[in-house]
């Protein structure tokens, strides 16, 4: 049993407005291949497979069972699934390795957000008695949160637009991003509201995509060409009722960061913030100072494939460590409405 776990490989599909088949299998095959190649691991050396996805996205039952074709489940393999972003599948795999149940794991997430009407489909994650039957869409729910934050003075529409400008500029270096480029702050602020106070640039695009991450325990990780050690990982949840908490704060992100021992000298944070104001709320909740580079990948604002965008944040943070650009990095993932659930994964070089 090892107490050390590292990320040894990562790959993602390009974030696209619409990508091929609804099944996800064809999207996953090359992504899994590249992640394993980076980790120098054969498919049959993977002890544990874990995925994140949702049937509601594709509108077909047991879509994750269908996707198992992509991993070659014969002879029988050890596999699990979470109906959440695959960052939570990563947590499950991490625990499996810590528990000595596996030495290596491959985590993957996929989603074809474009098959249905994403912001409407996401209404089904809300309380099924008193909220979901009203079909509040995910953009409107986020906009109510943004309004609360603007009213409280913790964010401004200008600061939100600055997040979009920085993210899109950084995304130019990320070949997997869907949105990128140089944008003028005032031009963005002159745009119409999508859902007051959110404009188009405040919202992540609807993206199809997939991602895969390879984990390994101590000695096995040291044999991989590159690695980023996980020094802590934790997730927490806030109440489901949107009116049950102060939407301008993210207590579950703070609690997860504390439990994961987020270091004070962090170099990079990849934050899973599908809306600009959420990045600002998360920076405050995680206590990230000005010296922390936020989302050098461009973040979810520049490509937000459901169920893999959070895992991709961990992969991007690991990539910063593996490449030597950072000694410490954090990958963050969110799930549920208005930053209800948050996961923090701390990665270190040595």
């Amino acid at each position, binding site marked *: 049993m090892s107490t050390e776990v590292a990320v040894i490989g990562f790959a993602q599909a390009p974030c696209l407005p619409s990508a*091929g*088949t609804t099944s996800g299998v064809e999207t996953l095959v090359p992504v899994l291949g590249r992640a394993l190649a980076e980790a120098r691991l054969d498919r049959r050396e993977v002890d544990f497979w874990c995925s994140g996805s949702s049937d509601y996205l594709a509108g077909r039952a047991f879509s994750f069972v269908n996707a198992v074709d992509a991993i*070659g489940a014969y002879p029988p393999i050890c596999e699990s699934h979470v109906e959440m972003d695959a960052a939570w599948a990563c947590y499950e795999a991490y625990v499996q390795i810590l528990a000595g149940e596996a030495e290596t794991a491959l985590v993957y997430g996929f989603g074809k957000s474009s*098959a249905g009407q994403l912001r409407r489909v996401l209404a089904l994650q809300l309380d099924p008695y008193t909220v979901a039957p009203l079909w509040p869409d995910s953009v409107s729910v986020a906009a109510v949160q943004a309004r609360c934050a603007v009213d409280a003075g913790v964010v401004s529409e200008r600061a939100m637009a600055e997040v979009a400008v920085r993210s899109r500029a950084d995304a130019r270096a990320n070949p997997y991003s869907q949105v990128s480029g140089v944008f003028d702050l005032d031009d963005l602020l002159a745009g119409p509201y999508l859902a007051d106070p959110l404009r188009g640039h405040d919202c992540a695009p609807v993206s199809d995509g997939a991602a895969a991450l390879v984990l390994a325990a101590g000695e096995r990780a040291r044999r991989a060409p590159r690695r980023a050690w996980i020094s802590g990982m934790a997730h927490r949840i806030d109440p489901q009722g*949107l009116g049950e908490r102060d939407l301008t704060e993210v207590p579950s992100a703070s609690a997860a960061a504390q439990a994961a021992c987020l270091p004070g000298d962090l170099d990079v944070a990849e934050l899973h913030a599908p809306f600009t104001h959420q990045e600002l709320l998360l920076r405050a909740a995680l206590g990230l100072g000005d010296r922390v580079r936020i989302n050098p990948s461009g973040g979810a604002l520049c490509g937000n494939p459901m169920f893999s965008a959070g895992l991709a944040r961990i992969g991007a943070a690991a990539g910063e460590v593996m490449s030597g650009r950072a000694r410490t990095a954090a990958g963050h993932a969110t799930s549920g409405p208005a930053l209800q659930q948050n996961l923090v994964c701390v990665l270190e070089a040595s």
Partner: protein
Amino acid sequence: MNGVDAPPLSAPLTISFDYTRSLGPVLSRFMTGLRERRVLGSRTADGRVHVPPLEYDPATHAPLTDLVEVAATGTVTGWTWTDRPLDGQPLDRPFGWALIRLDGADTALLHAVDAGRPERMRTGMRVRIRWAAERTGHIRDIACFEPGEGSADPLRLADEPVTVMTTPIRLSYTHTTSADESRYLRALAEGRLLGQRCPVCRKVYVPPRVCPADGVPTETEVAVRDRGTVTTFCVVNVPFAGQRLEPPYVVAQILLDGADIPVPHLILGLPADQVRMGMRVAAVWRDRASWTTTPENIAHFRPTGEPDAPYESFQDHL
């Protein structure tokens, strides 16, 4: 993959179903209250009143049984505006979404505000419930909120308490096939059955798919005959909604000649109790004029009259 293809086939797919949910003691009283134009909240040990009601105290974890009535008028604590309402939302004209703290409550509920135009929305605005004309004990008994004070008087109804709520769900998708599935379906429209061979295990899959044993795309195209062997089957005796045939009838796994994975289909043309493993069957195609890119081009399979295939010939394909 096999060269350049026409774009993958896609088609609209609408799924709908009713979620029927038991309410439990707290939400039952809440929904029963809505039917009487009353809003009930639950009081936690710290004295706070939660609307919508919580079922358990988040601090003490005790069941919450102390429900109190709050006003049908309240204050907006957060809002946004929607210009183009989506299917199923409370209003079909532009409206505001708002978190609303009803007078007497300490938490806010999310609902629609029929304010006419966005300029009328603001944090702190006063709103009141517009009740649905017909109420059934459902959150939609609150039709929406509207700017203003006061509300219709509560009623005293002698009806049974509401214990179940039903919420219809309707979702529309565009379902898109893979390139391989598209080739398979297009061949079906020409009366041909296509398989593809896995480059690793050499098995032929019909319809083509990523090889589930090896995790690689199947590559070589293989024509498969429209006749084969029943490997296993079941007799459907149970009637169900949407059933097209009168039970009993047989659904079988059919190993087409040249394929390694059986396909499911109907076996008709003989009494259900005469279908057997190893029976040789052939496809019965519908009228050619009706062929499209669907498996329905084959109406069913029927016995060919050939001798049964020996068990050894299909034992590895069960």
